[in-house]
């Protein structure tokens, strides 16, 4: 029954076909990337690498499945047919060890530069952090240092579930958590970093288009994990951002006069952080 080989062939074709279809349907495919023309353009870098690996694995997939289907088509049992007697082939073993080895090691080294740019602590922008983002079941608490540029003072601006930044500016965020693990995931920038209680993890990125983008919690954090949705608001200009900050500060002072306890002051003020070895000595030094 050589026709079984068609099942494998058709399945392979449909797998490839579904990827090809997806690329032409914006409802299926990768989200519009908004980290492409900005100076850091991490999103473009990751999409480029994804497409490269997709092309290589796709080619290997097609060739392997063709070989498998061909073998099933060509060599079904039939009366009188005798299988070849072979225990293997040394040269073939060497060939199909070396070629994938070269490809895999190439892929590993080829990706290292991008990985270093996006995550190595030594590559982070030298500017001061724009904001602290702290995960807490099931919200993202955003804290700006305010006029004095220092976190943990009374002029800090507290925002819930909305991180405001300026277009094309490389922003540095201090990522924290007060309770359990969370993960800071911006699908349109292709950026993800877990937030770990007890650690302050620097995260940096930039965005090339003003607008509002969704911030996903990507690490299971409890019963309400699914609704831990935040937003990233990107302003066109610094002036627009300043305007927003002034009005937000004014609003905060109205509802909560300066000096009152901030909503999330418990774990993220410097006094606590200083006793916290992970954040104070490793990350900030």
């Amino acid at each position, binding site marked *: 029954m050589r026709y*079984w080989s068609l099942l494998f062939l058709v*399945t392979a074709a449909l*797998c490839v076909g579904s*990827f090809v279809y*997806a690329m032409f349907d914006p*409802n*299926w*495919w*990768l*989200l519009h990337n908004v980290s492409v023309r900005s100076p850091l353009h991490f999103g473009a870098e*990751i999409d480029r690498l*994804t497409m490269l690996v997709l092309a*290589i*694995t796709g080619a*290997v*997939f097609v060739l392997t*499945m063709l070989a*498998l289907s061909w073998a*099933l088509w060509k*060599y079904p*049992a039939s009366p009188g047919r*005798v*299988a070849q*007697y*072979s225990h293997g*082939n040394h*040269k073939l*073993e060497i060939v199909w*060890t070396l070629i*994938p*080895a070269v490809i895999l*090691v190439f892929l*590993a*080294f080829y*990706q*290292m530069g991008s*990985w270093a740019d*996006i*995550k190595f602590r030594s590559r982070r922008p030298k500017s001061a952090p724009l904001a602290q983002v702290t995960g807490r079941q099931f919200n993202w608490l955003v804290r700006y240092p305010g006029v004095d540029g220092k976190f943990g003072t009374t002029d800090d601006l507290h925002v819930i579930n909305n991180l405001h930044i300026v277009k094309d500016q490389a922003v540095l965020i201090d990522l924290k958590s007060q*309770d*359990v693990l969370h993960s800071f*995931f911006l699908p349109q920038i292709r950026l*993800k*970093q877990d937030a770990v*209680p007890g*650690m302050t993890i620097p995260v940096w990125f930039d965005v090339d288009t003003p607008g509002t983008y*969704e911030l*996903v919690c*990507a*690490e*299971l*954090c*409890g*019963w*309400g994990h*699914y*609704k831990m949705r935040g937003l990233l608001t990107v302003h066109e200009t610094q002036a627009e951002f300043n305007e927003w900050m002034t009005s937000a500060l004014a609003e905060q002072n109205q509802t909560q006069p300066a000096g009152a306890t901030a909503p999330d002051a418990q774990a993220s003020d410097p006094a*606590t952080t200083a*006793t*916290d070895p992970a954040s104070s000595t490793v990350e900030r030094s």
Partner: protein
Amino acid sequence: MSKKKSPASNSGPESIDLVATSHAPADPVSPGAAPTHQDHAHDHHEHPGPTNFLTRYVFATDHKVIGIQFLVSGLIFFIVGGLLALAVRWQLAWPWTRIPVLSSMMESQWQTKGQMPPEFYNKLFTMHASVMIFFVVIPILTGAFGNYLIPLMIGARDMAFPKLNMLSYWFMWPAFIVMLVSFTVPGGAAEAGWTAYPPLSVFRHSTPGSLNGQTLWLMGVLFAGVSSIMGSINYITTVLTLRAPGMKMFRMPMTVWSMFITALLQAFALPVLTSAIIMQLLDRTIGTNFFIPVGASVANEPGPVGGGQPLLFQHLFWFYSHPAVYIMILPAMGMVSDILSTFSRKPLFGYKPMVFAMAAIALLGFLVWGHHMFQSGMNPLLGATFMLSTMVIALPSAIKTFNWIGTLWGGSIQFTAAMLFATGFVAMFVIGGLSGIFMAATPIDIHIHDTYFIVGHLHYVLFGGSSFAIFAGLYYWFPKIFGRMLDERLGKIHFLLTFISFNCTFFLMHIIGLRGHPRRVANPYIYQFLDNPGVHFMNEFMTVSALLMGAAQLILIYNVLASLVAGKRAPDNPWRANTLEWATSSPPPHHNFATIPTVYHAAYEYSVPGEAEDFIPQTQPLANLAPSPALATSSHA
């Protein structure tokens, strides 16, 4: 039976490896399964099995009965785990709608008119994974097939430690019980995922399942782990000391090699998991702080003293659980290798490279755990080295795949149900292996980590891989185990439906994951970028396919039950295969062999030119001057 000598494998007693305990002194001139040795009275003892029902079927020390026990409990939990998965799928396709049966069952408890509460969704995927990994895939592959096949395939009467073997099965029962009971305790079953990351799993008020369910979950995994440790020690000892005369290590079938290497993995990795689990238990119960940092707390409670490190648990957990990934695939690879060779009527292509590839996977398997933690906050420098080791571990898998295709190439392929599932395994493992490269590449992983891409990947390996191999093994060894043939036609229909619905269920997960669909969310449509017709369609399509896949398994259940009662009686060697288990009756007698067989060559002498039959059992010398299979790849290339 010819007595012409084959110089390479049968030139005299010195060519026969006697490292094994010599039940039967080697006698190469009168080989064979037939009880013709009048001089070895020892081997003609009758070995009657226990007659008492309890000692025979319940507290049995016979490896075959224990294997069947693992198989039956594993298949029952397969159904449980599958149903949990269907409820997960239902919620993803049609969030918060009433689920057939489940909603009516839980109505009084949920008090939500049949809507699933979000924490119940978290319980579903947590328990689905835990049941499938700890109660189904590992116990069926190593516990059922390993137990049943190792002594038979190496020509031993039983395991080295039969009582330990019994204990390893009965340690599963406390695990079964606490896991099932955990659904009924206040707060319900665990919901921290099968990875049980602290602090979510440690703070009792972080989520309902962490109140009590998590403690029971930890105890369940602890018992299952202890069971596996006992099994692995037994398998290692058995393979090293109880091989029949002539059964050199490099004459063992791939199934035995894979079980042996898997047992080594378990013996080295499980103690680490056990200690991590105990530390988490202590954190939860007596207030230690292994994993809780300073200043963390939930629900506005005063935090504990702290001083621990959440990432420590992840390191310990993955130091076990990455090797566990291989524990769940290596035995599958071994079984598939044997099945492919049998039904291609062709020697396994590259036997030694296959063995070395497996050993390489096992060794490298201990050096790649960090690839689960690229985005965890672990120093990114480490991510770079783990990326390299992870890329390298893809290599032995690639070698194995090419060798499987090489085995088919030029064969005389018989499309039995077992063969179809084994071929399906190869095809699905190609997809699962290639999709792994995306996650191994750290920059790409930044985007797809914790999305449905990884869910697709792991199901291609664990369902398309391990579970297809379980099905293949079931169709292949069922006649040996139960003495009855399964219905082949039903088996092929089962394969066809399972293969199609499996791909329809899991392939689109890669695409939906690339889009950014996170895993473990009760309602993805909270996010606008997912609340569109494309994502809705894909999720609904996957759910319908999953339901069909579940329904297709009814065919297997029917086939197994009907064949047990009224299947055709199985001959000793229905597939005309070489390995030793086929040299005894179906099912084998209490102590497996009337006479301990003598082994003359490796397991893969199919279609040897000049032989009358296209297979030569390992108990039968080669008639012609065929090259010694053990040396084949070096001398015959």
